[in-house]
């Protein structure tokens, strides 16, 4: 049996708010294997975003263990965590988070800067990814000149440019209309079919139906973890 891509044991994240300790994530143990397509659901304040931030190595657990690709993240310093985010994880955000006044090509190339890739190689790889996203004629456009769907595809290209093991998408369709959301889900499904693990945080039940497995959070704990029945398919745009 191969090691799971992601494993948590009794993961806890506490916040002190106004002198009171809030357990945002409370004792969560689960595992995600390579090639899975997981939707993490829950109402706001359920702990799903905090959980995602921890498995994305953006936030540090208060206690418990987080194994990423077999590595215990507790032992890593901030530089090593930065390297994991750079090499193993691709982030897609609700608000796209592209750099303004920066071309699509340069936006996609940003993670490669921190991977220490040279200029020419950065441009080549970024261009490949954008072309794969159907944005070959948008390379030099700044985010302001792109539609929401195009911006999110640039963001997905950026997430994929370092060939990560896992895509972490936080409400990736939250700022998009229904048709565009469908396109984006199609892209995720196709990427998943090609072998990449996708973890998606959403509060929309119909978006979650495009995933293969659904994990539901409430009050910092997992209350449901099951395969999605009657999974939906979207054709990639």
């Amino acid at each position, binding site marked *: 049996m191969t090691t799971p891509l992601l494993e948590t044991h009794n993961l806890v994240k506490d916040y002190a708010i106004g002198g009171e300790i809030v357990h945002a994530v409370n004792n969560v143990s689960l595992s995600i294997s390579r090639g899975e397509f997981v939707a993490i659901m829950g109402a706001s304040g359920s702990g799903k975003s905090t959980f995602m931030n921890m498995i994305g190595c953006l*936030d540090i657990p208060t206690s418990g263990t987080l194994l990423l690709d077999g590595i215990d993240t507790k032992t890593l310093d901030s*530089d090593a965590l*930065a390297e994991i985010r750079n090499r193993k994880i691709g982030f897609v955000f609700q608000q796209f988070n592209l750099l303004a006044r920066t071309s699509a090509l340069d936006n996609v190339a940003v993670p490669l800067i921190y991977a*220490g890739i040279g200029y020419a190689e950065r441009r080549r790889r970024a261009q490949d990814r954008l072309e794969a996203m159907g944005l070959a004629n948008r390379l030099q456009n700044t985010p302001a000149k792109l539609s929401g769907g195009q911006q999110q595809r640039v963001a997905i290209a950026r997430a994929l440019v370092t060939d990560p093991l896992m895509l972490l998408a936080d409400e990736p369709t939250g700022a998009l209309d229904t048709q565009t959301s469908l396109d984006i889900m199609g892209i995720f499904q196709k990427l998943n079919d090609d072998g990449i693990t996708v973890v998606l945080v959403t509060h929309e039940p119909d978006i979650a139906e495009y995933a293969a497995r659904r994990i539901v959070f409430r009050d910092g704990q997992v209350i449901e973890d099951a395969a999605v029945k009657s999974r939906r398919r979207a054709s990639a745009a």
Partner: protein
Amino acid sequence: MKDVLTSFAGWGVNVAIALTALRTNLMRSILTTLGVMIGVFSVILAVAVGNGAQVSVSQQIATLGSNMAIVVPQPDSGSGPPRPSDRGRLTERDGQAILREVSGVSAVAPQIRSSVQIVTPGRSATTQATGATPEYGIVSNITASEGRFLTQSDIGSAARVAVIGETVANKLFPETSPVGETIRINRVPFTVIGLLESKGSNLGNDNDDQIVVPITTLRQRLLTTATQGPDDVTLIFVGFEDEDSLLSGQKEIERLLRDRYRVAKGKINPFTVRTTTEIAETTGEVTQIFQAVLVAIASISLLVGGIGIMNIMLVSVTERTREIGLRMALGAKRSDIRNQFLVEAAVLCVIGGAIGLSLAILAASIFERVAEFPAPIGLDTAIMAVAFSAVIGLVFGGYPAIRASRLSPIEALRSE
């Protein structure tokens, strides 16, 4: 090797990021740079003016003549009401005694100095007259650039002749050569026999605004106040053969004059003997202090410029907190973020420094031309300017940069 190349690539990227960020807030960047620019400009100019003052002072010392002692009578500044005997005196006979008895003396030049009014038809000038002997020309290295200098026979006959400086000549004879013309000094007619070779001006002191007449003539014809004795002088220049004899000669002159004036043991000298070496040293110290004060004042503006940089960098970090969070999420290490903002501050400072340096060079050359005051900016000054700007960037950009790098990625990402 790969690491070095990688970090090089990283720096290049940082410069590109910095330029984009600075272009985004162009007006703000320009105003911030202005602070550093003015700071570097004033520091460089202060250094240049200070250097110029030193050059000027050493030129002035050189125009005094080298290996020379200046003997000046010094009134007793001790306690009690002043008595006539306290007043310092110096005579031509003292000068002769110095020449006779002090070793290594090449020439003595006793002088009487007096302010005089010169009139020609239609023009007039007030200047300083030096009653002197031909030795004055030898000791203080003065010659006539036109006509001739004083001769021994001018002194013997108390001739009414004058050698005039260029400034005086330009005032009285703006279009023609003054040599051979008649001028009235304190109403007494004199013939101009020569034009003093120009010695320029140092620190606002015009060396060409003077005339030289025979000491005998000045004493007999031009003095308005009576002197104590028939051969009293204002001061004596004593020329020495070399620097060693100057050093020992200074003490010998003091001993000789104490003997001649029967100064009791323990009483202070009624005269002072200063050497050109001493004068060079003290004026050198004075100009150094002058330069230090100038640079210190100018540094304040550089400090203010640096604070401006820090202020803007803090604003920039705050505004771009989300971008910092994003970059961290995409794999930027703390050092990457720190370097990004350091480079941004450094770019601001280096641009400001370069413009400030260029403006200082321009101002210095205008200064040299208009004020005829040397303000040299050497390569060392230019390098100092660049180093200064870089240091300002590192010091004042350092804190905001480190603050940016310490942000938690998730909190930075969440900020609006």
